[in-house]
């Protein structure tokens, strides 16, 4: 559907620490997809990579004003479009219709 924009996307797991991206789509299905949607990983949302645990596996992401840790295998299945994300995720009330 968004084939023309797809060239710009990277996987969430490849964002550097502090890097921000706008979710383009989730590549998984089933309950895991549902779960991530429930936690706020919805296409269009800005995600900022936060803390990385010592072994680099779970990584915490700022999403919609809260922080959620994802396994690498999960972050590998989320496509994002890197962006500046000036306001992304910080506990400041969340992006207001960041269009």
């Amino acid at each position, binding site marked *: 559907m968004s084939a023309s924009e797809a060239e710009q996307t990277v996987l969430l797991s490849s964002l550097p620490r502090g890097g921000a991206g706008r979710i383009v789509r989730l590549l998984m299905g*089933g*309950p895991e997809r*549902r*779960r991530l949607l*429930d*936690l*706020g990983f919805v296409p269009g949302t800005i995600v900022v990579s936060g803390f990385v645990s010592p072994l680099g596996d779970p990584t915490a992401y700022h*999403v*919609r*004003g*809260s922080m959620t840790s994802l396994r690498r295998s999960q972050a590998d299945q989320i496509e994002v479009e890197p962006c500046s994300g000036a306001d992304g995720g910080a*506990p*400041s*009330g*969340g992006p207001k219709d960041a269009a």
Partner: protein
Amino acid sequence: MRLRRGSGDGDSGCQSCPMAGSAAVHRPGLSIEGCDYVVALAGNPNTGKSTVFNALTGLRQHVGNWPGKTVVRAEGAFRIDGKKFRIVDLPGAYSLLSNSSDEEVARDFILFGRPDVTVVVVDATTMERNLNLALQVLEITDRAVVAVNLMDEAERKGIRVDTRALGRDLGAPVVPMAARSGLGLPELRAAILGVASGTIQCRIHPAPDLGAEVEASLARLTEAVLAEYPGLPNARWVALRLLEGDPSVVREARNGTLGDGLHGHVVDEPAAAPTGAS
């Protein structure tokens, strides 16, 4: 019962309780028989549901600042204007569509427990994530109250929540609260009574138009579900989950345990770690 107050506790808690001296308090309620209305207390993990529960009932259910503390439901009772309410404190849930066992307890009660009022407690500091559940609840019922808790904490973080605008947009009563200090409690009680007695009715937010083909399948499935489970509330919701292949709903529908979370989980004491009990 663990709910009974320990004698060494002192009574300072009672005096600082926002309900102290209120004529509306008859007795702190464990006596849950013969109530007029049933209230379900739902919300994301760690939004202060148990604090709201305690504020309403005058009980002292264990409150802790970590998610997942309430793993089964706890019940209590309170009165508003002479009407007796039974209130059920549910485990935290991000969604009605999830598969963890404590979230299923919450889901089953909201969907199949026929609560007269569902109070959704949301965290004012993370509204976006919290409103997911609120919307899901408003999708299935017109008898809900949205309690925006932790307003004090939000203010400290520089977050301003326009509860009026939110109420207008949601079409449901929205009550700003800081349950820890009792702020918003009278308004919450008024809203609960209003919804219970039918003077307040929420706008239902139906799922978006699914198209004729899906609707037709959905209607057939709903009928089949009702044939198997006569009188099951929210049969359409169940059919929708079956259609999308939700593993837990499919399993429950298959082995006849749909809504069974309602029975068997009832506890009349606060949830504690089951291992530490003995």
